[in-house]
């Protein structure tokens, strides 16, 4: 994407809340924050899935670890985001290190299933934490605090999320273009040969896994703040599936795949839930409660007929090599 387009996009995003406020549609500011948070989570998954070729079905564990870290810090009286959010990244990263160290000893199908199983394990662990709500979750007394902005204000929160998302995307861009990024993509292409030319491939895959886990954790911390609520359901393996849907919708291995996918999926769900289409409602009065059916069908169609995702329909993978 040319630099001008990026700047225009950033400016539009910055202006968005002001526009929404003037239109008296402040709800959409909160919705946009949610889209951006999921964009960060999906982008972190795209790093290991799209660039690294590692099909991890347990990414929700890292997002959830971040959610609970940030939430617990608030509940325990340490609401500062400058402590809570980096801590969320750290703990998610450490969790990714532990899970990755065991899982990356396996390949292919085994890897997929093991990451899935470990994520379920973390889910059950969280459910059993009665002190923090157990399986019902916990309402947070407030959001994390930043010294120079009031996070309770949805617009301030929006800008914080926007800033962090922009930084994450920038970091991803540099990462992909760096030595490390080249190694990760090459491992995806031909891991055997990478070993044969002298790269300790498992080490690099693990590093990638940890980085992705840490950014997933940041997204999780923001999620806890967005809803003022922590709940084990964020760790359920079907949430990992949601993130994967976003990645494939937006474009696997495409720099903005996570963002586009989050926008499409959440936008679709929002649209179906809150905007009744008369002619559909006449035939199927309850259709809005079954939005997942539509999501499932669209996903199936995309996988069967357009596996490169929406982005792939318009251009080749952005990070391809010439």
């Amino acid at each position, binding site marked *: 994407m040319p630099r001008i387009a990026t700047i225009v996009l950033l400016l539009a995003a910055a202006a968005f809340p002001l526009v929404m406020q003037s239109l008296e549609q402040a709800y959409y500011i909160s919705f946009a924050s949610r889209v951006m948070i999921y964009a960060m989570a999906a982008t972190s998954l795209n790093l290991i*899935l799209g660039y690294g070729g590692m*099909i991890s*079905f347990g990414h929700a564990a890292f997002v959830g670890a971040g959610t609970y870290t940030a939430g617990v810090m608030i509940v325990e009286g340490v609401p500062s985001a400058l402590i809570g959010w980096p801590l969320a990244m750290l703990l998610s990263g450490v969790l990714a290190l532990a899970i990755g160290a*065991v899982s990356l*000893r*396996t390949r*292919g*199908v*085994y890897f*997929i*299933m*093991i990451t*899935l*199983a*470990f994520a*379920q*394990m973390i889910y*059950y*662990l969280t*459910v*059993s*934490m*009665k*002190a923090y709500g157990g399986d019902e979750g916990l309402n947070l007394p407030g959001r994390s605090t930043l010294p120079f902005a009031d996070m309770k204000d949805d617009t301030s929160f929006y800008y914080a999320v926007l800033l962090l998302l922009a930084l994450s995307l920038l970091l991803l861009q540099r990462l992909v273009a760096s030595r490390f990024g080249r190694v990760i993509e090459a491992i995806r292409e031909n891991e055997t040969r990478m070993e044969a030319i002298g790269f300790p491939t498992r080490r690099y895959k693990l590093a990638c896994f940890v980085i992705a886990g840490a950014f997933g954790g940041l997204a999780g911390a923001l999620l806890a703040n967005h809803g003022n609520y922590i709940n084990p359901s964020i760790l359920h*393996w*079907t949430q990992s*599936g949601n993130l*994967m*849907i976003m990645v*494939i919708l937006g474009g*696997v291995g495409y720099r903005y795949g996570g963002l586009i996918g989050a926008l499409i999926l959440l936008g679709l769900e929002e649209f179906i839930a809150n905007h009744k289409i008369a002619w559909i409602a006449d035939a199927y009065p309850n259709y809005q409660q*079954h939005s*997942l*059916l539509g*999501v*499932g*069908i669209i*996903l*199936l169609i995309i*996988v*069967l007929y357009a*596996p490169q995702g929406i982005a792939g329909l318009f251009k080749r993978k952005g990070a391809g090599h010439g």
Partner: protein
Amino acid sequence: MSGILILEQSLNGLQFGLMLFLLAAGLTLVFGIMDMINLAHGSIYMIGAFLAATLVQATGSFTAGVLLAIPATALIGMLLEVSILRSLYTRDHLSQVLATFALILISNEVVRIIWGSDIALGTPQALSGPVELIPGLFYPSYRLLIIGVGLAVALLLYFIVAKTKVGMLVRAGASNREMATAMGVNIKLLFTLVFGFGAGLCAVAGAMLGPIFAVQVGMGDNILILAFVVIVIGGIGSIRGALIGSVLVGFVDTFGRAFMPHLLREFLPPQFASAIGPALASISIYVLMAAVLFWKPQGLFPARG
């Protein structure tokens, strides 16, 4: 901890394990032979349970309902295979994961639309009472039926795979598809039948477990993970591994939930034990899985190299 309690929990573990085996067997067959990850396997289990509940209500007989649900579910499974799943065999694992995940979403909603969120399936009248196995040990007769059915199916499976021509064809198709096709085996038909058979097994498990766990939308999602843990432990493609893995998982999970809190209370201060006891119990099978994988990354009895 009395011997009676241990015996009772052992039977529970065996019962759960055998039902898991029904799911795991179908899953590992599809995996081992078609090299396909099928997340929708849990959905077929759910559909089998719902069909059984409906047929039991329609016929008024538990046996008739369950027996009819088996071919009905097998048919649905085969239709699914022919229409959608067949095109996934040659695709990469990510596509298979996403497509079958889409099928989970679709089937959950379709079931919800047709039946609603849940449906009642009760234990058959004749088996609602306990049986005294040994003096002091009363065990629900229905659960004994489950154990019986599970063992019977396991034997049937062993017989089919190891001793019959069909079983040999299945194993041949698994190890060398081209060779099997060259020898005149209709691979496509074989795969469809294998899939249908796996679906039938799911129906048995769903129908039998229905009275114990509730028959509700999404019931397949969590048991699917357990089935995956089983075949990872047992080794992909191996029926024997699936059996041993299932029984192992069944025992560890049951014993973990029953005895872990008590055990911890022996060694740890009570507030600690009650805090981490339930947590450790629920993750015990994952710890088992991690331990097996550390020592044998391809499971206990990998059928493929």
